């Protein structure tokens, strides 16, 4: 906020002062000084608490720093890209990278489709809308620990709700969280359920910006409901879909809590994610290696965001 207002103030000053340069330069300088004065606290905080650690961890990722080096953090060896090379040869890193990719590729579309469906549904009703909106949003604000306890009960192999219901139709439900092939999908479904609320609220707001007259015109031209949705609604809310895709992907790439509380990364590392592995490595005291892994994840987040901007950008 500080920088923003300071910058606009400076811009205003530039415009206003143009006719009288001599007198203006004094007041402009004063305004610049004020602007910097206002921006300074933020800049300092940013340097110390954001830029500093970011650069510090970048430096760590090219050294062999460990937890036993904390008293002399600079007396460590520079190892260049060794941590990164080691990382790409680490079989467990391949596993966790694959798990994370699956989580994003399956989880993001699932969450978005569910959120959009919920938003469209809510947009079409007028009664009880508030009730349903709260209902869908509630998981977002509920503690993950409470959620995990309930879901572990739901997914219990014997007597869990899911398997009991499956039993009614004659299906012998598996041990969801103890199966290497089903544990990750189970977590993805849980994450989609937990996160759809936020996107739903955003999408709902987007749907209300779709011009009614265009929809009516389309309907007069004989467009079916699906055609109206496909050709009018979706293109209108495209920027909002992009926003949803980006924030959900960034969140899902850093997937950690669900696995941490539900499966501890198991069975057989099938739900261990990149963030989880990074966290493990920090815990083991391998600061350099863990920092390198964080940067790989960072690059992945940037790349994925760029791809999404390209794929979903507004066509002119």
């Amino acid at each position, binding site marked *: 906020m500080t920088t923003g207002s300071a910058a606009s103030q400076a811009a205003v000053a530039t415009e206003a002062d143009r006719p009288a340069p001599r007198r203006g330069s004094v007041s402009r300088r004063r305004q610049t000084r004020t602007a910097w004065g206002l921006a300074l606290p933020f800049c300092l905080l940013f340097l110390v608490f954001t830029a500093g650690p970011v650069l510090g961890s970048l430096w760590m990722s090219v050294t062999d720093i460990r937890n036993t080096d904390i008293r002399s953090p600079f007396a460590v060896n520079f190892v260049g890209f060794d941590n990164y090379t080691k990382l790409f040869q680490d079989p467990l890193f391949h596993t966790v990278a694959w798990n994370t990719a699956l989580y994003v590729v399956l989880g993001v579309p699932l969450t978005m489709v569910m959120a959009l469906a919920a938003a469209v549904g809510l947009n079409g009703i007028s009664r009880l809308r508030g009730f349903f909106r709260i209902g869908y949003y509630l998981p977002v604000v509920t503690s993950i620990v409470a959620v995990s306890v309930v879901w572990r009960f739901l997914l219990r192999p014997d007597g869990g709700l899911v398997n009991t219901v499956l039993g009614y139709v004659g299906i012998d439900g598996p041990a969801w969280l*103890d199966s290497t092939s089903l544990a990750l999908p189970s977590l993805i479904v849980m994450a989609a359920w937990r996160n759809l609320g936020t996107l739903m609220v955003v999408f709902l707001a987007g749907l209300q910006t779709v011009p009614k007259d265009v929809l009516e015109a389309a309907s007069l031209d004989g467009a079916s409901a699906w055609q109206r949705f496909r050709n009018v609604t979706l293109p209108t809310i495209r920027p909002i879909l992009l926003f949803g895709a980006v924030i959900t992907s960034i969140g899902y790439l850093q997937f950690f809590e669900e696995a941490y509380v539900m499966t501890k990364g198991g069975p*057989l590392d099938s739900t261990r994610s990149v963030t989880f592995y990074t966290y493990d490595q*920090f815990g083991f005291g391998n600061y350099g290696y863990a920092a390198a892994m964080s940067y790989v994840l960072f690059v992945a987040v940037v790349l994925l965001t760029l791809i999404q901007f390209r794929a979903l950008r507004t066509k002119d």
Partner: protein
Amino acid sequence: MTTHPTPVGRTRRRASLRAAPARRLAALATAGALLALPACGRSSDSGPGTSKQDISSGKATGTITVWAMGTEGAELGSFVKDFETANPDADVKVTAIPWESAHDKISTAIASGDTPDVSLIGTTWMGEFSQADGLEPTPDGLVDPGSFYEGAWNSTEVDGTSYGVPWYVETRVLYYRKDLAAQAGWDKAPTSWRELSAFAADLKSKAGVDMPLYVQPGQTGSWQTALPFVWSAGGQMTDQAGTAYTLDSDAMKAGLTFYKSLFDDGYSTTGTLDAGQLESDFAKGDIGAFISGPWEIGLVKDAGLDAGKFAVAPLPGQESGMGTSFIGGGDLAVFRDAKNRDGAWKLVQWLSQPDVQTNWYETMSDLPAVKSAWDGGSLADDQMLSVFGEQLNNGEAPPTTPTWEQVAAVIDSDIEQVVKGKKDVGAAASDMQKQAQSIGTGL
């Protein structure tokens, strides 16, 4: 769910399930806060100081600051009144810190040089903090190492130097349903691996117990249940000097083969238990026996099982007699940056006196690390606890290498693959060794 990576006893076990994320994220923050300045490279001698200094004679004086975690921290302040009476010029200030943030706080304190004088240190942290040059070697003659349980004393020794004094201990024993065992025709606990298998088989066939002997199927902390079988078979995790891992041994294979048989024969489960399920199933009779530490006595009773219906026994040995169990607990260490090191060591010395240890048990129910402290008070009369006292004579502490937690995670992962049939025992043992070697001891 039954065990935990950092073996510091009941409090630690409970606390650190929640503790870990905060601790590791904080480690990340601490580490991240180090600014990018040109690295100067390691000096050739990067190890910590090992020279020991004597402490002054006479009474302790001045302020002694102490950090202690959990309930220990809450109780210690009033407990040290006797010490202050005996040393009128000394003033002990105890700060209770939660287990959740303890590792991080100590780590930050060592990094900044602003430490207390003494702290309780979880046994698995000794390697890291001593190698970070944060702890002072134990002065010669401060205490008699022989008066402690050997496994407990070993938890203070890193690379041949002791950096503290054991305060309290815990170990793992066999819990079993006495009533169900009697139904199955067993009026005593098994004392060999063969008997243990037969015991489980009888519990299943004669007493109808669904899961006669639960042991953890891999995942965090399973090494604490599995490695006792390896130790019992004569295995060691490191060489004599503690400078290289020796995981690919015949004892490792023997121990893992037996551990795996408990799953193959259907005595345990490869599925995970929910929190509290172990105790409730044990109380219901769905689980007939399991291996765990002293805190479980209270939890089992809380689950509604009458004290007469279950018993504890030392772990069975490979052929006969008592097996080797795991020893965990807490150590007291004095920091290199302590402002009152003489007073600090004197307090540590006082806390490890047998009668003080006995009193501490009465206050906290922490099992004493000093052997002779078990001769007095209610400890001597408690039949269940005497089993723990017996087992402590035959217990191993995990290696105190700074990288042990990472190696333990490798072992956990290989144990899981073995019991789930993804890897045979030989391949698992050689994988453990290969990975442990590439991790290194960190000394």
